[in-house]
Structure formats: C-alpha cells, structure tokens
C-alpha cells in the first residue's frame, strides 16, 4: 500500500506547509495593542446621564528618538515608511458602548489643502463641534488641514451606523519646533461624541499625507500608521 502512504505523506506535508504559512502570516499581521478609553465620571446628555470616557491620540509627522515608529511587518516596509506621519500610541482604539467619549488629539504635523472640503468639517460629534485650542468650531479652512480622523462603516448591517470625522488643523510651516522637529505648541483638538450599541468600525485619515499617487500610498494604506480599527465594546 505504498501508494496510500505516499498520498498520506503528501497530504500531510501539503497541509502542514499551507497551515504554517497561514499561521505565520496571521501572527505576523497582528494589530497593535488597542488603547482603551478610561472613565472620568459621568456626563449629562439628551439621553440622560451617561458614563464619560477619555482617551488621547497624538499625530506625529515622523518618528524620532522621543517617539518610536509603529511596528511594521518587514524591513523593506519599515524602510519605506520611515519618516512618514503616524498616529500614536496606537491605531486600534477601543471605546465603551452607550457612553460619552472624549478624544483629545495632539497634532504635531504640518498640512495643506484637503481634497474634499466635507472632511474639513466636524461630523458625528455631540453638537457638531470640536474644541480647537480652547474654542468651539464646527469646521476649519480646507487649506489648513493637517490630518483627519474619520471613522466609518464596517459592512455589518447588524451594528448601528456610525460616522465620525474630525479635521485636525495643521501647524504653520514656520512654527517653533523642539530638537525632534515637533512644534513646541502643537494643535490641540478634543471632540466628544456618544457611542451607540457595540460594533466594529474602521477609521483612516482623509488628508493626503502619504506618498506616491495622490499622496495616498505608504502610511495612508498601512494599518498602524494612518489607518486603524475603532471598536465599540459593550
């Protein structure tokens, strides 16, 4: 029964190889550890009093000794993305369901013209505004955008539709910078929104800040840099 022996061996080896490759890549592609919003009390809203959570996100124009770049699979990818902007500390974000969430952005990058002025406006926050360096605004100049934080739908009809878009204003090109090249007084933006039922969403930056065609390559199309996941957990 040599033939069946050969068959068994071939099948086993083949399955082993395929599974090995699959597992290796799957582990290799792990998302960065999620940052979880911390509770800071409750807030009264139209829906009554809801728990209030906060989390902080920074946007850096490039990595430096102070800020290490995100983990990237493959030396060549890392080399390509070297010196590109990214969200810090992580791009996997976790917020609780049915609660008020405030995200504080600190934006160190420069910027310019955004393709679609729609994303220079604030969408999906509690009163359609955001706090920019202390003052309430509902939109910024489309020519002075640094980045955007745009959460959009995940193709699951079972979860509530959720759309949040926050423009992060740019720092002037001549802004005073520290030794790492980051502005000493970066743009500070904070938005407050109410989450619905649990669900998984993705977010990415809508401002062309990558490289190659339309500056939408590189970091713009790499999880961990300018795109990530946004999870609303029950």
């Amino acid at each position, binding site marked *: 029964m040599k033939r069946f022996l050969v068959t068994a061996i071939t099948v086993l080896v083949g399955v082993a190889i395929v599974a090995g490759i699959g597992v290796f890549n799957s582990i290799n592609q792990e998302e960065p550890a999620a940052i979880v919003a911390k509770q800071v009390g409750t807030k009264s809203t139209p829906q009554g009093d809801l728990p209030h959570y906060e989390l902080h996100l920074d946007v850096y124009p490039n990595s430096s000794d102070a800020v290490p770049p995100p983990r990237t699979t493959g030396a060549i990818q890392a080399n390509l993305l070297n010196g590109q902007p990214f969200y810090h500390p992580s791009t996997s974000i976790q917020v609780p369901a049915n609660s008020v969430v405030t995200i504080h952005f600190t934006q160190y990058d420069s910027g310019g*013209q955004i393709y679609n*002025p729609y994303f220079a406006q604030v969408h999906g926050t509690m009163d359609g505004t955001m706090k920019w360096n202390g003052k309430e605004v509902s*939109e*910024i100049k489309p*020519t002075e955008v640094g980045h955007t934080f745009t959460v959009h739908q995940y193709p699951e009809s079972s979860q509530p539709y959720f759309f949040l878009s926050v423009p992060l204003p740019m720092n002037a090109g001549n802004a005073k910078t520290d030794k790492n090249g980051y502005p000493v007084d970066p743009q500070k933006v904070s938005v407050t929104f109410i989450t619905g039922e649990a669900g998984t969403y993705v977010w990415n930056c809508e401002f062309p800040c990558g490289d190659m065609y*339309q*500056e939408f390559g590189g970091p713009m199309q790499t999880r961990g840099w300018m795109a990530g996941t946004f999870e609303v957990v029950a």
Partner: protein
Amino acid sequence: MSAPTEETLFPTTGEPVATIARRGRVGLWLMIVADVAGTIALLISYTYLWSLNVNGGWAPPGARVPFTESNTGPQKADATWAAEWPFWVILLLVLLSTVAMWWSYKAVKAGFEAAAVTGAVLSTLLMVAALIAQWIQITTFPFGPSDGAYGSAVILLCASNLFHMLLVLFLLIGIVNRTRKGLISQDVNYQSQAVSYYMTWVVVAVLLGALVTTFFVESPNTDPAVFGTFETGAKSAPEAPPSPSATPSSSPSASPSPSAS
C-alpha cells in the same frame, strides 16, 4: 559555393537550407505580428490620450491654454511641444539603412559577396547614426516624462524606436560578420533576407511614430471640462472649487465649498 540551393544542407539538422529558410520566414512574420501589436499598443496610448485631453493635461505646461493652468505639479512650466523635424531625420536614417541592407541582400543573392559586406557595413553605420540621433532627440526634448501626457507618450514612442534600433543593430553586426565569413552566401542567404524584412517593419514603426507625433499634436478636445474638474493633490495649490459639484452637466448652481460660509 556555387552548388544549387537544394543540395546545401543545414549543418545541425541535415535538412535542405530551403526548408530552414521557409521555417525562418514563417517565424519572422509571426515575431513581427507580436511586435506590431506592441507598437499598436503604444500608438493607441498616444492617440487615446491625445483625443481625451483628460483634465486639460495633454499639452506640456508651456503650451497649455489658460483654463487648464490649474494642474501645477512637478512639471516644468516652460515645457512645450517637441520639434517635428528630428522624427523625420531619424526616419530617413533608418530608411537609408534599410535600403542598404536590401541592397546587400540582393547583392549576396546575386553572388557579389564583397558588395554584400559593403552594404551590410553601410547599413550598420547608418543604423548607428540613427541610434545616436534618436538618443540625442530623447535627451534634448523640451519636456520631461512628467510634463503632460504628450511628453510621456512621445518619450515612450521614441524609447520603443530606440529598442527596435538596438535590436536591428545586433542583427546587422551578425550579418556583417557572417557575410564576411562566407556563412551568408549565394546559397545560404535567408538570414540577410530575414533581417531586411524585419528592418522594413522597423521603418514602418518609426514612420507611424513620426506621423502621430507630427499630425496629432494639439488635442481636438478643447473643452476637457466635460471630463470633470479635478483638483490636484499638490499641497501648494490654491483653494480649488470642490470637485463633485462643478460638472457642467449638472445644475449651474454649483455650491461653493462650505468653508466659504
């Protein structure tokens, strides 16, 4: 070497040279078919972009009419159309080289092998001249590859000419050697014939290139707006109208960008 053809046998397979020659001709024609298809692909690219003038970006920036000035990118502002005469000079050189090759083939067929060598050498020299001319033309274009679709298309056409010429040059050197060594003789001359045929096709290819680059210059589509306005990704660009609303076919009440309110 004056034995009639049907008795000369091909060394490696022992078949009559006439058979080998026929085989070679068929193969050559098929190769030319593939080459034609490739050249046609390039010509399609040229004429298609020429006819579309997407976003007013066909002409080099220096030659653009004002309404398409919005596309400022990594382009030379003063880039303009290429001069037409170099295309025809190169065509002439290639043509002469081909004629010389044909002459060499006829000569070797008639048994004048010294004349054949002369013809082949002459053809080689002319092809080298064409090659140099083509190289000079490519390097001295008033535009770079990024300066409008016209620039890209013309440069690629010339590059394919360059490729053809290099190929032919290789073949010609072979022909010269072999004719000198008597490997191409009155009996065994299908290789010169094949090269002559191929060069004839190369002439046609160069001619087609010269024709389109001469007669399809200004794009016929002077109103590229019908293909939609489209903002550049350059950060330095001035604030442009929001793209989607500014189609001429939709209602003229195109909205200003919300930021203007």
